[in-house]
């Protein structure tokens, strides 16, 4: 927590002190701005988002029509990153893929943070049987490594012939469901220690409802932790989605994602002769995830100094 103690003398009735009433948020922002690397990471992420969400609007090839006459062309002035086997513009597709990948990353992050924080908070606050049930489910999910679990889900989706346009949403759900247990554990641990603090006794004495105690008093105490985990979580989700899609178990073509675009590298001819097909999406994943992680680390240093390595 940001503890920037501002000197305040004791308030004998007429004390004239002016404490800097800057909010914790502003203080944290100031400290974040001083961390050059984190800001660089943030800038890269922001640029990536803007490029992916606005870029295709300005592209003349956004319709993804197949052009047999410009198949597998190397980068040129007309097609900055070349074209693929169906004559589609690679740059446009990378940006469109970015939309999907980033959306999946964000959405599954929100889902896992929501489920994880809620269940973790409830488990840590109520303890006893509720805690046992929630945490055993979490343990169960944690015993199976994440990727194999996702593969099983992905294979099931293919088996059940889920329509490709729904698959994107189901992938978000899958990633969210696989990611919450670790977070729930962390939140629960924090809750267990917070609930014993004296200010929570004071909250009991005030006669507040459990819901109020949980959401108005306890959760705000772990918001910094949540922000940090959430940020790092986006990167992880993007990676997982890419892996899944690369193996053809995630989002399916023709919907482009960075993962299924790198699939081109599976083909020896494309790998050797047409590097513009797989280098740009690979590079995008690399840059985005690294940038998110750098930014997340910076955030952690600012918001959660206890965890500093």
């Amino acid at each position: 927590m940001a503890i920037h103690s501002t000197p305040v003398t004791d308030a004998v009735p007429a004390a004239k002190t002016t404490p800097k009433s800057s909010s914790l948020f502003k203080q944290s922002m100031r400290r974040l701005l001083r961390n050059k690397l984190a800001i660089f990471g943030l800038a890269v992420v922001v640029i990536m988002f803007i490029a992916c969400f606005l870029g295709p609007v300005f592209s003349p090839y956004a319709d993804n029509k197949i052009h047999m006459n410009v198949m597998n062309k190397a980068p040129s002035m007309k097609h900055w990153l070349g074209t693929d086997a169906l004559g589609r513009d690679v740059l446009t597709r990378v940006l469109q893929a970015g939309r999907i990948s980033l959306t999946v990353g964000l959405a599954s992050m929100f889902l896992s943070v929501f489920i994880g924080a809620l269940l973790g908070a409830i488990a840590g606050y109520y303890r006893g049987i509720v805690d046992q049930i929630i945490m055993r489910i979490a343990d169960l999910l944690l015993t199976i490594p994440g990727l194999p679990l996702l593969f099983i889900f992905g294979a099931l989706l293919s088996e059940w012939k889920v329509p490709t346009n729904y698959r994107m949403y189901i992938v978000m759900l899958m990633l969210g469901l696989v990611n919450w247990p670790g977070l729930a554990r962390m939140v629960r641990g924090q809750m267990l220690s917070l609930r014993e603090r004296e200010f929570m006794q004071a909250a009991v004495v005030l006669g507040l409802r459990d819901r109020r105690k949980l959401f108005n008093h306890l959760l705000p105490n772990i918001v910094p932790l949540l922000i940090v985990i959430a940020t790092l979580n986006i990167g992880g989700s993007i990676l997982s989605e890419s892996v899944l899609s690369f193996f053809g178990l995630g989002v399916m073509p023709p919907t482009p994602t960075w993962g299924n675009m790198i699939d081109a590298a599976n083909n020896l001819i494309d790998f050797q002769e047409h590097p513009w097909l797989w280098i740009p999406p690979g590079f995008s994943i690399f840059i985005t995830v690294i940038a998110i992680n750098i930014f997340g680390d910076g955030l952690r240093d600012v918001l959660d100094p206890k965890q500093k390595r």
Partner: protein
Amino acid sequence: MKDLIKIDHLRTHFFSDKNVVKAVNDVSLRVREGETVCVVGESGCGKSVTAMSIMGLIEEPGGKVVGGSIEFDGRDLLKLSKNELRTIRGNDISMIFQEPMSSLNPVLKIGQQIMEPLIVHQKLSKKEARARAIELIEQVGISRAEQIADSYPHELSGGMLQRIMIAIAISCGPKLLIADEPTTALDVTIQAQILDMLREFKKKSNMSMMLITHDLGVVAEMADYVVVMYAGKVVEEGEVVKLFESPKHPYTQGLLKSKPIINQRQDELYSIPGQVPNPLDLTDSCYFHDRCAHCMDICRTKQPVLKGVADQQKAACWLYEEAVVHV
């Protein structure tokens, strides 16, 4: 005067693997309307646990109120449901803790924390609650109330925070205020201010107060009635002036003797010899017997009961039992 809260034979125990700690062992006391009752005793004598039992802060499986009753305004608090208890806490009974620094939520603004009970119990709107909160901050003698309402606990000093705690405690106009060593963590000048403020509010609103302390100076200043606790039991109680003038129980006598007297030179301050008995192996005896200068045979084998020994004064000591032959 009517009894506001009447605690009868309260027993609160804490459980470890094999042992039972009888932190509060058959305590009866009452607070009348508009009265200040001070509960005194050294650390670990069960003062705070008594207060926590009233507020329902004893949490199983660690501890449990195993017997007795706490009657508040005609209702037994121990028999109320969680919801009924919630409407009393913070509204009719409020509590101030020892450590103001850790009793406020570090991530919420002061104003929000004062507004909370007002919104919950008095059903005020956010706007009304804020106006009232600012009024309360002014009432506890803090200037620039608006600004303070928007600051966080870490920006204020201990004295200010304890004032804020008082503001929260009195916000709903409680009938009973329990103050658990409210001045222990503060320096002496602030202590006096805080006590003055409590006394003033008490007078203004005819609220009753249960003040837990180990500071006899505070007792003399604040109390109408004093309850002395030792090892989970009440050993003596009485009207404040009488108790200070002629303490009956040897423990109370020792306590009063170990208080420095202004303008009197003493080479060494008196202290009661020995230590508080280990709460794990209490035998059926007077718990004070091995520290007592007047210890008799019966003290080692039988527990004395609390009995009237003088006008408005009770003590639990064999010295005042007529049937016992004094040696």
